[in-house]
C-alpha cells in the first residue's frame, strides 16, 4: 500500500507494546450543530468505505438549526457490523460545552483529539490526547472568515487521516463526489486536510493502537440513506403525485424525490411527469394523496409521528372508501414533538389501526436501505392491488443515516395496477358493483373518473354503503362490508413481503425483529452464539402478520420480539393476533432516543433467560 501505511507502522513502533486495533473501532465527532461537521464526517465515512472497509455513520443531532451539541458516530467494523456501539474509542472533542462529559465516556486506552486552545481539562490519565492548532489551519487568506468554523471540521479530518492511516486520495475523491466536482472548493478543503496531516506527521507521536487497513469487503457496494433509497423506489414504482409537509426525519425523502425525478423521469420535452406539492399540513397532504389515488395516480406522502396523528381521519376514510395511496412514516420519538430528532419504532401500534372504527392497515417494515428501495415500489403495487392506503414504517436511523448496500436490483416484475375496469370492460360486463366481492378476495373492482361509460361512475364515501356504493345505514350492509374488509385483510397477508427466517437446528429460542433493529439483533445473535446460546431468527417485513410467524413461534420454546420502543408494540400485536402462542412471546423493548445496540439486546435476552 502507500507510504503512509509504512509511516504509520514506523510511528507505531514507539508503542508496540499495544497490539494494533485494525478496522474495528468507533469514532465520535462531538461538534456544535450547524458547524459543518456533517460534511467532514461524510468525507471520513466515504473514504473508509472506499478503502473497502465496512463502515456506518450515525448522526445524533439536536432539534436546532445551530448552536446545540451534536454527535456523529462512525463505526469501522471489519466484520461488517453496522449497529450502534455504546462507546467510541476515538473522540473528536470539538465542542467545548460537552467536552468534559464526552471525555468521561471514553473507554480506557481511548483517544481524544481537540483544539489546543479549547479549555479542555485533562481529567483522564488513561487516554491519549492529541491537541491540534486548529486556528492556524483555517486562518489562510483564501478562507473567508465566516467560513472558518466549517473548515475547522476539516482539521480533524486531516488529523484522522494521518493518525488512522486513511488514504488521503480517498478523502480527495470523497470531496470531489460531495461537491459535485467543483474543484475550487474541493482544493480548498483538501488543502486543509493535507496541511493538517503533514503537521500531525511532524509534530505528533502516535500513541494509540487504532488504524485502518485496506480491505475488499465493500467492493461494488454503494452508500445511501434510507430516505434516498425510498425515494428512488417510489420513482421506479411510478410515483406521479407526492404531497407532503416538512417534518424531520422524513423531509429528505421528498428532497430526494425532487433531486432524482428530473434526472430519471422527465418527458421527451424535459417536462415533469409528476407533481410534488408542499401542502399546508399533513391533513392536506394525505387528502391530496387520496384524491390523486382515487383518480388513478400513484400517489404518496412522507411524514413522521405528528403528521401521522394529523392524517388519522383521512387514513380511516381511505380504508373505508378503499382508495390507494402510500404513506411513509419515518418514525421518531413521540408523542407530539417528543424527541423530534431521535429515533424510535414508536408508531407501529398507532399506524396499524390508524383511524376510528375497525381498521387494520397494511404496513411495510423495511429493515435495510435495499428494502427501502424495494418497498418503495412494491408499496404502489400493493396499494393499488388492495385498494387501501399502505404505510411504510421506516425510521430516523434507517432514513437519515448512510448505510452500505449492494446496488439495488431492478424491479423484477411489471407494475400491478390492480382491479381497474375500463370502458371496454364495462361494455362487456354490462355494469359493475364497486364493492362486490367478485373474486372472493375481499377486493372489488374500481373505475377511474373519466371512464367513458354511463355505468362507470360511483360515489366514493366514508359513510355506510351498499355493494353498489350507495349510502346505507342498514345493519346488514355495514356488517357485510366489515366482513369483506376482513377478507381483504386476509388477502393482504398473502401479498405482503414475507418474513425472512433463519431456523437454527436445535435452537429453543427464537429472536424476532423488524426495521432498523435488524443490525443490533444480527450482532447480538453472533455474541450470544459465541457465549453458547444459538438462536433462530425471524425478521418481520410487514403487517398484517403472515402464516410463517406462527410456525416460527410454535417451533421454539421462547421467542423474543426485539424492538426500539418502550411498550413492545410489535410484541403486543403478535400476542394479540396469536393468542394461543402468546405465552411463548417475550418482549425486548428499549427506547432512549438512540439506535439499538447489540449489548442492550444481549443483556436483555440473557436477563430474561436467567430468570
Amino acid at each position, binding site marked *: 500500500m502507500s507510504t503512509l501505511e509504512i509511516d504509520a507502522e514506523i510511528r507505531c513502533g514507539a508503542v508496540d507494546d499495544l497490539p494494533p486495533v485494525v478496522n474495528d473501532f468507533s469514532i465520535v465527532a462531538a461538534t456544535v450543530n450547524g458547524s459543518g461537521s456533517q460534511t467532514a464526517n461524510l468525507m471520513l465515512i466515504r473514504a473508509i468505505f472506499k478503502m473497502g472497509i465496512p463502515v456506518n455513520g450515525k448522526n445524533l443531532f439536536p432539534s436546532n438549526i445551530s448552536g446545540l451539541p451534536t454527535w456523529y458516530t462512525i463505526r469501522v467494523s471489519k466484520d461488517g457490523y453496522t449497529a450502534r456501539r455504546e462507546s467510541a474509542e476515538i473522540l473528536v472533542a470539538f465542542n467545548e460545552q460537552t467536552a468534559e462529559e464526552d471525555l468521561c465516556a471514553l473507554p480506557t486506552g481511548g483517544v481524544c483529539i481537540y483544539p489546543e486552545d479549547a479549555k479542555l481539562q485533562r481529567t483522564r490519565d488513561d487516554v491519549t490526547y492529541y491537541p491540534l492548532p486548529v486556528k492556524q489551519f483555517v486562518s489562510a487568506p483564501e478562507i473567508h472568515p465566516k467560513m472558518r468554523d466549517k473548515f475547522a471540521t476539516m482539521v480533524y479530518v486531516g488529523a484522522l487521516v494521518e493518525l488512522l492511516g486513511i488514504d488521503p486520495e480517498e478523502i480527495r475523491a470523497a470531496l470531489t463526489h460531495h461537491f459535485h466536482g467543483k474543484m475550487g472548493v474541493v482544493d480548498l478543503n483538501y488543502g486543509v486536510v493535507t496541511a493538517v496531516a503533514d503537521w500531525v506527521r511532524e509534530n505528533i507521536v502516535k500513541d494509540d493502537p487504532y488504524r485502518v487497513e485496506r480491505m475488499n469487503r465493500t467492493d461494488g457496494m454503494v452508500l445511501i440513506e434510507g430516505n434516498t433509497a425510498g425515494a428512488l423506489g417510489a420513482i421506479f414504482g411510478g410515483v406521479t403525485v407526492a404531497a407532503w409537509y416538512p417534518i424531520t426525519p422524513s423531509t429528505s425523502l421528498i428532497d430526494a424525490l425532487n433531486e432524482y425525478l428530473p434526472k430519471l423521469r422527465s418527458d421527451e420535452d424535459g417536462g415533469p411527469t409528476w407533481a410534488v406539492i408542499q401542502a399546508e399540513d399533513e391533513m392536506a397532504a394525505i387528502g*391530496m394523496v387520496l384524491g390523486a389515488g382515487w383518480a388513478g395516480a400513484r400517489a404518496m406522502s412522507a411524514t413522521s409521528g405528528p403528521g401521522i396523528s394529523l392524517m388519522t381521519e383521512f387514513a380511516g376514510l381511505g380504508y373505508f372508501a378503499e382508495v390507494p395511496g402510500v404513506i411513509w412514516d419515518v418514525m421518531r420519538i413521540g408523542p407530539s414533538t417528543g424527541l423530534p430528532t431521535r429515533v424510535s419504532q414508536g408508531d407501529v401500534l398507532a399506524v396499524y389501526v390508524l383511524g376510528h372504527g375497525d381498521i387494520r392497515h397494511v404496513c411495510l417494515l423495511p429493515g435495510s436501505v435495499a428494502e427501502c428501495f424495494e418497498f418503495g415500489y412494491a408499496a404502489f403495487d400493493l396499494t393499488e392491488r388492495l385498494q387501501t392506503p399502505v404505510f411504510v414504517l421506516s425510521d430516523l436511523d434507517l432514513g437519515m443515516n448512510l448505510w452500505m448496500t449492494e446496488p439495488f436490483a431492478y424491479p423484477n416484475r411489471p407494475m400491478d395496477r390492480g382491479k381497474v375496469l375500463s370502458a371496454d370492460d364495462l361494455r362487456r360486463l354490462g355494469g359493475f358493483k364497486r364493492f362486490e366481492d367478485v373474486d372472493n378476495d375481499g377486493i372489488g373492482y374500481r373505475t377511474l373518473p373519466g371512464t367513458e361509460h354511463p355505468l362507470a*361512475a360511483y360515489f366514493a364515501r366514508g359513510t355506510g354503503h351498499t355493494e353498489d356504493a350507495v349510502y346505507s345505514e342498514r345493519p346488514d350492509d355495514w356488517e357485510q362490508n366489515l366482513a369483506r374488509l376482513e377478507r381483504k385483510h386476509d388477502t393482504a397477508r398473502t401479498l405482503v413481503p414475507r418474513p425472512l427466517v433463519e431456523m437454527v437446528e436445535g435452537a429453543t429460542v427464537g429472536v424476532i425483529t423488524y426495521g432498523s433493529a435488524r443490525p443490533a439483533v444480527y450482532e447480538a445473535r453472533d455474541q450470544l452464539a459465541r457465549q453458547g446460546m444459538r438462536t433462530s431468527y425471524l425478521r418481520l417485513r410487514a403487517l398484517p402478520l403472515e402464516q410463517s410467524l406462527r410456525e416460527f413461534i410454535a417451533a421454539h420454546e421462547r421467542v423474543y420480539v426485539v424492538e426500539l420502543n418502550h411498550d413492545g408494540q410489535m410484541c403486543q400485536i403478535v400476542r394479540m393476533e396469536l393468542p394461543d402462542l402468546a405465552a411463548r412471546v417475550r418482549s425486548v423493548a428499549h427506547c432512549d432516543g438512540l439506535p439499538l445496540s447489540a449489548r442492550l439486546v444481549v443483556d436483555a435476552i440473557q436477563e430474561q433467560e436467567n430468570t
Partner: protein
Amino acid sequence: MAVEARTSGKANRLGLEKADYRGNVSTLCAGCGHDSISSQIMSVAFELSLAPHRIIKMSGIGCSSKSPAYFMNRSHGFNAVHGRMPSVATGATLANHSLLAIGVSGDGDTGSIGLGQFKHMLRRNVPLVYIIENNGVYGLTKGQFSATADQGQTLKYAGLNELPPIDLCIEALVADCGFVARSFAGDAKQVRSLLKAAISYQGTAVLDIISPCVTFNNHEDSTKSYPYGKQHEEQLHDITVVPKREEIMVDYEPGTVREVAMHDGSVIQLRKLHEEYDPTNRMEALRLLDGAQASQEFVTGLLYINESRPPLPKLARLPQTPLAHLPAETLRPSREALEKAMTELG
C-alpha cells in the same frame, strides 16, 4: 348505478337528455335551497352538453356535502372528510387535469373547519368550481352557528351570536381568487348564469350561494312575523317532522334590491350588481362587500374576475396526458437508469 329511465324530450348536443344528468332522490329537508342548487347544476350541465363522465363531484361533510349524490349519477363523486375537500380535489385534479371538478361545500365546511384548506386551494388556484351552499347554520348537528352567521342573530339552539361573520367572498378576494361570485339559491336564473361562467373559468371559481335552511335558521328575534307558534317551532328541532315547504324563489333586475322572506319569516336583502359594475377591480369588490356587510345586504352577481393567474396544473407544468394515464414505460425508468444512479452513488 342503475341506468336512468329515459324521459321523452329534447336531447342536447351529446344526445343526452335531462334525465341523464339526474342524481339520487335528495334526502335533504323539503324546500332546502341546496336542492335548488343541485337542480341548477344539472340543468347547466345539460344545457352546456357537458359529458357527465368528464365531471368529478367533490364534497366535504354536512348537508351541502351530501348533495353531490343528488345530481349527475353518471359522474364520479368523492365525499371526503369535513372541511378537507379542497385537498382531495387538488389531488384528483393533479392526477387528471382533463376532468371538470365541481366541489360542493357549506359554510361550516368552508368557513370553520375548512378555512385553511379553502385558502390554500385558492392560493394554488386549483381548477375547481367551488360552490358554498351558505345557510349560516349547522344543519346536520341541529342548529349551531357557523362562522358566516350574522352578528346579533339568535338561534333556538345556539342563542345569540356575538361574533362577526367571516365573509367567504372577502376571504376569496384576499387570497387573490380570480373568480368570486355570490348568489341566492332561489334565483335560478342568476345561479345558472354564474355556474356557466364558473365552469368556463380555468382556476378556482368560488360561488357563494345563500341557501336558506328551512329547519334550523329560525330567528327567535323575529317571532312577530314567524308564521308558526312557539309550540310548533320546538317541533322543528325534530328532523323527522320538518314540514314540507316551498323553495323560496326570486327573480329581480340588475341594480335593484330585493327583500326576501326566509322560511322563518326573517328577511334578507339581496342587491344585484349593476350591469355596468366592473368586476375586474379587486379593491372595488372588497369595498363593495365591506359596505354590504355594514348595511346587512347580500350583494349578488359576479364580484370579481381575473384570469391572469395560472391554474395549478399549468403551474406544476403537468404534461398534456393526465398523470393518471401515463403508461408504465413512462412511469418506470429503465434498468440502465437505475444502474447509472447506483454508479453515481458508488
